[in-house]
């Protein structure tokens, strides 16, 4: 077994670290305070081709593996930044790449690769369908050469910073015996959609542009249906493993951020005449967070390497997201404790990263649902839903 990185992977890591040094914590603090989008950061990444990592070269992308892509996102979060504003540009196109027609790929992928078209919105969740996506109610009805879509989505991120949105909608009624077989996926051009797609911002705990999306008589031409009608849910599931691995890497980056911050602080902050890190009550949680993060990182690399080698990695990808998000959340709490009151002060960045890292226990899928997946699909235990 080989745990070494190639020189190219090392250079990817170094270059992202170099780029992130130009976007210091003050940059992220300011964005967080006024809840705005990291335009300049996203532009820099786009220009360097970083967000086109997973698009094959023949469509104008870079064509590296998930492992390399995950290093990019890890280092952004490790630096104190937040990849959430742009990670979706990397992976939402996967559905199009794997299941779209050649014509659709030629039409959209080069523009996505160059950043001329931002595909960062992926609309699945609805008020009455969160964890149980097969229950969505947004309807797409075929009428001649188009589909007419009506419905409502919630928590849909980055709609206002996207040109294109991937949309999951119902094309035939819910069927208990075929839950996954009556949904379809569409690529919606938000400019063409005009007023028929209205995104209303939803304030959340994190600076994450997320919205309630009202869809009213949206006309989607049939050439924007991806793959076959009724197969949409399966297509989306096939892209989830990549998303899980990338999110896991972001969590690992967050965890390293917290561990480094805590270590540095524990070494320098003197209380009762000694550095606080000398006390095992402070030191051991840091060491434990470190061990936990390293363990989660191993499964993240296993999932990534095996995915890139063409294997099925459902269990590994899910475990990676689960373990890494738990590790980063544990590290976040540990760091808060280490910093005492200062952890709450905005200028130290701990409270911001604390909020940001908490999200990954919930989105894009809750950790309970991951455990359900493992319990049912891997261990053969009865299904709760």
């Amino acid at each position, binding site marked *: 077994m080989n745990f070494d990185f*190639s*020189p*190219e992977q*090392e*250079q*990817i890591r170094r*270059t992202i670290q*170099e*780029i992130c040094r130009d976007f210091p914590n003050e940059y992220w603090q300011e964005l967080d305070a006024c809840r705005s989008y990291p335009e300049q950061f996203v532009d*820099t990444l786009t*220009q*360097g*081709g*970083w967000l*086109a*990592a997973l698009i094959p070269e023949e469509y104008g992308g*870079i*064509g*590296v593996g998930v492992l390399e892509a995950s290093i990019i996102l890890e280092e952004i979060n490790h630096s104190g930044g937040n990849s959430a504003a742009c990670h979706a540009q990397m992976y939402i196109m996967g559905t199009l790449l794997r299941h779209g027609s050649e014509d659709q790929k030629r039409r959209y992928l080069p523009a996505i690769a160059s950043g001329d078209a931002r595909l960062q919105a992926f609309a699945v969740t609805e008020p009455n369908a969160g964890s149980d996506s097969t229950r969505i109610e947004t309807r797409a009805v075929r009428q001649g050469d188009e589909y007419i879509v009506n419905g409502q989505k919630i928590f849909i991120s980055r709609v206002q910073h996207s040109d294109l949105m991937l949309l999951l909608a119902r094309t035939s009624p819910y069927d208990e015996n075929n839950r996954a077989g009556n949904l379809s996926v569409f690529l919606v051009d938000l400019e063409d959609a005009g007023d028929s797609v209205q995104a209303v911002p939803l304030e959340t705990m994190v600076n994450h542009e997320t919205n309630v999306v009202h869809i009213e008589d949206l006309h989607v031409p049939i050439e924007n249906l991806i793959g076959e009608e009724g197969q949409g849910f399966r297509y989306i599931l096939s892209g989830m493993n990549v998303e899980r691995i990338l999110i896991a890497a972001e969590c690992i980056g967050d965890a390293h951020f917290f561990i480094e911050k805590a270590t540095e602080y524990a070494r320098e902050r003197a209380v009762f005449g000694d550095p606080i890190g000398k006390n095992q009550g402070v030191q051991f949680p840091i060491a434990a967070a470190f061990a936990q993060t390293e363990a989660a990182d191993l499964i993240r690399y296993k999932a990534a390497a095996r995915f890139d080698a063409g294997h099925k990695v459902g269990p590994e990808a899910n475990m990676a997201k689960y373990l890494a998000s738990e590790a980063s959340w544990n590290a976040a709490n540990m760091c808060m404790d280490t910093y005492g009151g200062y952890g709450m002060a905005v200028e130290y960045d701990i409270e911001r990263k604390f909020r940001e890292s908490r999200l990954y226990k919930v989105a894009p899928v809750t950790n309970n649902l991951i455990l359900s997946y493992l319990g049912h699909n891997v261990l053969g235990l009865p299904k709760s839903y």
Partner: protein
Amino acid sequence: MKIVVCVKQVPDTAAKVVVENGQVTWGDAPLVINPWDEYAVETALLQEEEHGGEVTVISVGGEDAKEALKHALAMGCGNAILVSDPSLKNADSLVTSQVLAAAIQKIGDVDVVFFGKQAIDGDVGVTAAQTARVLGWPSLTLVSEITELDPGSKTISVERSVEEGRQVVSGQLPAVVSVVKDIGEPRYPSFMGIRKASRAEIPMWSIAEVGVEVSEPVVEWPDLFNPPKQEVVTEIVSGGSPQETAETLAEKIIEEKVL
């Protein structure tokens, strides 16, 4: 226009360089492109963008110097050449400049050669001037701005950053130019650049292939030692208004006779 950039592979700035058993070592800290040379690469790429042509990056060094060359390729240079030879193990800047000059001659029809201001390990800062001398070309060192470069009329005008201020100098091409920070921030390597660079086969030239007879090194390093440890006493001046703190601090500085 034909442009050459000379780059060196050096220990990372974060590396702890120490002397152990009479040898300089930086542990397993990574080797990187000399940071000053990134400015030279940036300058070369800007000139290429303006005037067309091609940029070749060369390094004299061991196999590991390929990483510096790959960094330059990832930034956008078209070609890279490594000059490597066991006999160069103890090269000083004279030997290095003879080899660089011969390699530049072998590339042929070169209009301008860019260097960094100095290498952060050796810190000698003379390789550019020595290379110019061997080539017999004008040497324009410590350049902070290229105000004009005309490959047609073979002329170049630059501003040099010297201790007294700025100096405006014009010269003839081909010329050797070393650059300082003010020349402009180096670009990040692009992702595609990194990919291409990692696949690139970098040609290696031996001394025989370059066709040069090098001198014996004239600089010897008879003894290497760590600087003596200095006792540092830290005192934090605090209390009172900023005015009072500043006054106390000023008194202490005067007391210490450091000013």
